[in-house]
């Protein structure tokens, strides 16, 4: 009879009988996706709170994307549960001494803040869609549906006078302000979940939440840039074929100019947070080596031996060093940015991997190792959800959601925004 974890765990030397890699690929995806949410939100707040004007175009986009990601963020942890339908227990009988229980509350708060902020941002749009539909006679079923959705979304407020819009603006600023610490909390918790496990020598460090927040912002910004560039490229493509209705930026050249300036601006912030994240990670590594407590022998053999490729080649070199150089070379182009942000995203993913899987690569005995073999071809529900396919599904889902949500919250077509 197979035990959970047995199928993808290979034990070497002395490992306790009950030890397996219980936290597998979905727990790698979980902080990765949560990080993207938090990062995207922080990016949008940079404009709303600190008034960094150059990020205006990116801010609205990032907020909607953060909302799409938000729904996907808890999915990996639910997929990982042995009893997914009991996941609701976290809200029903929360045990707040556990970081996972606190996550439920913070996640809900955060979701409420993002949704509220979006509502203020798009309220005018909802009213503008709903009112003409209201007056229109003999509506089709589709229009009825649209009318119904947008009426609900207005929450019964149809006043879009200058004064109320000013209030909206203020509310957004306040919400974005509260949102930054909550977003950091949200992801700090993800880090805390690992950092507070005293039984795990690799995870237990107070730096863990901070490292997670910094790399979260890095990954969030990178994904926003990537998605932004992709959408802009599509728009450029459409503009060149003159298929779009009249928009603010009509010509291909106009679009390109905007794209490059937005991307260059965002890249500066990406660089700033990246340097911060890498410094913290290196500090953690140096500190461990210098203090060299009991667990260091086994940690060293994992970090500099077994996981050397994953940590120093894939994460630090390909995921950090190369994109750093790419962004630092003057005259940043779109093509270079795309390569850079993809590598950054990969680097952050590898960091999550090295924490989650690397933290289980050695035994609690400090005298044995466990090797993780991720299930590729699924042959049952468990190897699907905790295998390559489950992880890829989780990664693709936010983009599908974004496409759907963008129908209600138009990201580019707004003539005027806050």
């Amino acid at each position, binding site marked *: 009879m197979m035990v959970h974890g047995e199928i993808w765990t290979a034990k070497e030397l002395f490992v306790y009988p009950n030890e397996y890699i219980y936290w597998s690929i979905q727990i790698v995806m979980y902080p990765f996706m949560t990080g993207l949410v938090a990062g995207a939100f922080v990016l949008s707040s940079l404009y709303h709170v600190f008034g960094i004007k150059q990020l205006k175009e990116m801010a609205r986009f990032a907020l909607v994307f953060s909302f799409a990601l938000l729904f996907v963020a808890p999915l990996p942890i639910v997929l990982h549960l042995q009893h997914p339908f009991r996941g609701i227990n976290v809200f*029903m*009988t929360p045990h*707040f001494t556990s970081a996972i229980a606190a996550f439920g509350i913070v996640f809900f708060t955060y979701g409420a803040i993002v949704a509220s902020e979006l*509502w203020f941002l798009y309220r005018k749009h909802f009213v503008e869609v709903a009112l003409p539909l209201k007056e229109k006679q003999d509506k089709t079923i589709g229009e009825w549906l649209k009318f119904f959705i947008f009426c609900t979304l207005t*929450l019964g407020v149809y006043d879009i006078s200058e004064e*109320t819009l000013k209030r909206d603006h203020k*509310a957004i600023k306040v919400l974005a302000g509260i949102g930054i610490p909550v977003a950091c909390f949200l992801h700090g918790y993800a880090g805390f979940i690992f950092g507070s496990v005293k039984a795990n020598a690799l995870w237990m460090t107070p730096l863990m939440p901070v490292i997670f927040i910094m790399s979260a912002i890095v990954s969030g910004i990178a994904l926003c840039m990537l998605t932004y560039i992709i959408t802009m490229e599509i728009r450029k493509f459409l503009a060149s074929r003159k298929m779009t209705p009249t928009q603010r930026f009509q010509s291909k050249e106009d679009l390109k100019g905007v794209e490059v300036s937005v991307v260059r601006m965002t890249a500066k912030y990406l660089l700033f947070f990246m340097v911060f994240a890498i410094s913290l990670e290196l500090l953690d590594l140096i500190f461990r080596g210098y203090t060299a407590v009991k667990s260091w022998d086994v940690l060293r053999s994992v970090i500099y031996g077994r996981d050397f490729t994953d940590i120093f080649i894939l994460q630090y070199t390909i995921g950090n060093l190369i994109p750093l150089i790419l962004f630092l070379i003057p005259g940043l182009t779109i093509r270079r940015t795309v390569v850079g942000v993809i590598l950054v995203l990969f680097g952050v993913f590898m960091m999550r991997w090295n924490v989650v899987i690397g933290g289980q690569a050695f035994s609690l005995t400090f005298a044995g190792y466990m090797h993780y073999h991720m299930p590729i071809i699924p042959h049952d529900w468990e190897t699907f959800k905790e295998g390559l396919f489950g992880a890829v599904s989780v990664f693709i889902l936010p983009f599908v959601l974004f496409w759907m949500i963008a129908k209600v919250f138009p990201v580019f077509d707004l003539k005027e925004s806050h």
Partner: protein
Amino acid sequence: MKSHVYRPLWVVIGLVCIILVVRYFYVPKDFGIGRRGYMYGWHRKADVEFWKNYKVKYKGSAYCKDCHSENYNKLMQSPHVIIPCEDCHSPAIDHPMDPQKLQIQKGRGLCLRCHYPLPYPTSGRANIPSIDPDTHNPGTECVMCHNPHNPLEGLK
């Protein structure tokens, strides 16, 4: 408070209320903080009874004594007196009703648990008489020659 700015807040409060109502019906009434406090005692009280009422399967050698007195008494006189009946005969559970017959462990592996030679200094294992299973009548069950209830009575 008339301002439209508070509308999202009402929605959130509404959601919280829904969660609280669901919680009222969903959570068992005996769920609460036990004597070990919130950190260590947050639980559903009925679960303690569940574990208390779990079925006992190993009944102890005294349970065998009355019906199987011959073997029992023999064992009492032998060095194997320290081995409880159920170690080799499997748990009694509700024997003789359920199961009617116990599954007796007879293979060489059973005896080798103690009698495989592992002369480890500082361990009690070093003091147990042992045989090398590769040279000592390989393939034969130990009970063919030895009586486990009284190993000293001589070979069969």
